[in-house]
């Protein structure tokens, strides 16, 4: 934790210093000829460093420094690049379909990156409070196991309880058959599982001793399944933001390349 705080302090200090220096330089040199070209190239350089983080992840065998360091650079440079983007735009909204598309791509990429940073800082902490570690890829198998156990308890040959079998068929079969309550888990709402547990409690109140034991086991399985859904929802969020961040990065790079072509091809220097 101390190391993390030290990293955070250093990163924030570097970001604030770079931002201050850049704003000062912008105020001093914004009237320079070709200033937009220079800020554009600086922005492109920043985007390039941000992009090669993905390459670095794919080449772990090369001695290119620790991935953790790269991630820190990626995060703080990402914020700094957003400032460069605003300076390149001269703090004014873009005009024209091409430039608006390009700007939106940048906003979506940097915005998804910020959302991803928020998720990666908040969701793991939440996950740690709900049971042990679960590997995302194993969740379907675990869910299948829970479902099988629940079916065995409610519908198995030695179940012998029509009330439990009926309740399972009406309320639990669907719950165990797949992931449920994705958005409610992300919103930290436990209303659905509480309602289910409340119904099971009602059932338990009127059950005999044998049935009561089975219901208590079912309650444990429902809780485990709910925890599994919670893990799935949060781990999915931790992965899905990359579905915006990475694909749109490539779209942004393609549009950026054409932006450079258009800027130079339509500049006064074009012959």
């Amino acid at each position, binding site marked *: 934790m101390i190391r993390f705080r030290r990293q955070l302090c250093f990163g924030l200090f570097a970001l604030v210093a770079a931002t201050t220096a850049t704003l000062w330089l912008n105020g001093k040199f914004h*009237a*320079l*000829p*070709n200033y937009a*070209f*220079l800020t554009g*190239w600086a922005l492109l350089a920043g985007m390039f460093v941000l992009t090669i983080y993905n390459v670095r992840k794919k080449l772990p065998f090369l001695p290119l420094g620790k991935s953790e360091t790269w991630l820190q650079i990626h995060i703080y440079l990402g914020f700094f690049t957003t400032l460069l983007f605003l300076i390149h735009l001269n703090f004014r909204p*873009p*005009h*024209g*379909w*091409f*430039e608006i598309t390009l700007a939106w791509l940048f906003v979506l990429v940097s915005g998804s990156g910020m959302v991803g940073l928020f998720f990666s800082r908040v969701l793991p902490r939440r996950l740690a*409070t*709900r*049971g*042990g*570690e*679960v*590997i*995302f*890829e*194993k969740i*379907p*198998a*675990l*869910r*299948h*196991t*829970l479902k*099988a156990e629940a079916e065995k308890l409610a519908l198995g040959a030695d179940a012998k309880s029509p009330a439990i079998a009926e309740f399972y068929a009406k309320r639990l079969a669907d719950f165990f058959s797949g992931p449920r309550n994705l958005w409610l888990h992300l919103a930290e709402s436990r209303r659905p599982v509480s309602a289910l547990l409340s119904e099971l409690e009602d059932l338990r109140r009127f059950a005999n001793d044998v049935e009561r034991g089975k219901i208590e086991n079912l309650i444990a399985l429902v*809780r*485990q399944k*709910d*925890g*599994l859904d919670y*893990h799935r929802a949060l781990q999915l969020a931790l*992965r899905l933001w*990359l*579905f915006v961040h*990475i*694909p*749109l990065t*490539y*779209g942004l790079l*393609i*549009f950026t390349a*054409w932006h*450079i*072509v*258009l*800027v*130079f*091809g*339509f*500049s*006064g*220097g*074009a*012959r």
Partner: protein
Amino acid sequence: MSEQLPAPDFDAQNYARPNQNWICGHAGEGRPCPLGPDAKGRCRATAECRPLLETQPGETKGRWRCTRSGGACESGPLPDGSCCRPIARCSPVPTLRVWRGRATLAVIAASCAALLILLGNPPWRNHFINPGEISGAHSGAAFAALAVTNHMSQNCGACHVAGDHGPNGMVNAALHTDPGMLDLKKLALANTAGPTAIDESCLKCHAGRNVHQPDAPQISCSFCHAEHQGKVMAATTDVNCDFCHGDGAKMAVSRMTPVIHHFADDHPQFRFITEKMRDPDTLKFNHELHLTGATIPKLPGGQKLDCAFCHQPDAAGAFTRPVTFEKNCRVCHSLQFDPETPELMLPHGSEEFVSAYLRSLSKQYLDLAMKENRTDASGFVEKKLMDLQAQFGSGEDLERRIFFSSATFGPEANIGTLSGSTRAVFPGCAYCHEVKNSTAGSPEITKPVMPERWLAQAKFNHAKHAGIACAQCHDAIHSQDTADIILPPKETCQVCHSPQGGVASSCAECHTYHQPQLVAR
């Protein structure tokens, strides 16, 4: 609250590899096959073991032995040597990583396709890449007509080299720019004010470079006139002017003005003050007398003579109409040369007309008598001529007095009188004009030269200053001499036109880069 989840015991047989692209289709059921799918997502399931043929010495057929890990199965291999426990094949499932890769490829494909379609189709291309609305001057029907006249394209190609080309042409143009795309040093130090290829397009319609100084460096049109900024072209800023006027080396060469960065800071005093310039007009006029003099009569409407009576705004309100004798002077300064006959007035505007009029006085009096239906017209004319002769002597003397008398000084006596509360009668041409002797007939009156505008290099709009009293800028009540140039000094303007004053004070507020048209009377 924490619930106990299934323990994540490490299972060497079912080791999950999240970085793999495919997972076994049975993984969701909790029984993935140990082999797993191949890299291309194909199921590799065959059987639980690959039986081994063991042949004892002397045997020819041999026996198949089960090689299943964890112990041989009960049934053993089939007679043909295949395993008796085949593994059910599955449909491998792509991992999120694969889906992400597919999404990436889809975005790349969509981006490339969209760009190719939009950049490859000229009408769409022009609309798509246009970085901002083009000014009204460079769009619309009028510009289209000019483009046809000057054999220009009517789209982006009217100005841009790459404007008429597709993606290939754009890339080609981008690769042949000067400075080059990656020539960062040259790009940083480039003279963006210098003429560019785009200027050649501008000059097709705007022939010639009409600059404010003949030796001014050639500036690119687009350096000051930024296009794609909206319907109205963006205003020129001080940065544009600073390119020359903020550069000591350039201004040293020009020897025109010192380095100027901003009107409120280092703009020099107006030259008409520093060089003590005088109004060269020969007309005699005393502003102080006309505005404050006790002898100045009221105007016909009863109001007092003020600035606005003579200096009336033009149609646009930016400047004032020229002061003319007929509109502004005659109301007080009539040309009655004979106080006894106020109906007769000298013509104004030409010495020859005045001479001709005076030499035909008998006819003028006769016309008057006829007009007034006098019965003794010839007697009336004779009497008038005799009165004039008694007062002024010969006709030559009369003409000389009319031209050269100035009421207050001069070699000749006054023609009329200026005393009393009545309107001034004609005191003589020299009262207002410079009159010279001429060898050819009538005396010569120097034509008044009244420029419609002073500081012709500067823009000004009186209408915008209507809320300010005239005297706040023009110190006319202390000016007795026509030669006074009654314009305010720089400091008067700076009271408002400065950051402190809060009114715009950029160069372009007053100046224009291009040569203004001087309007002189």
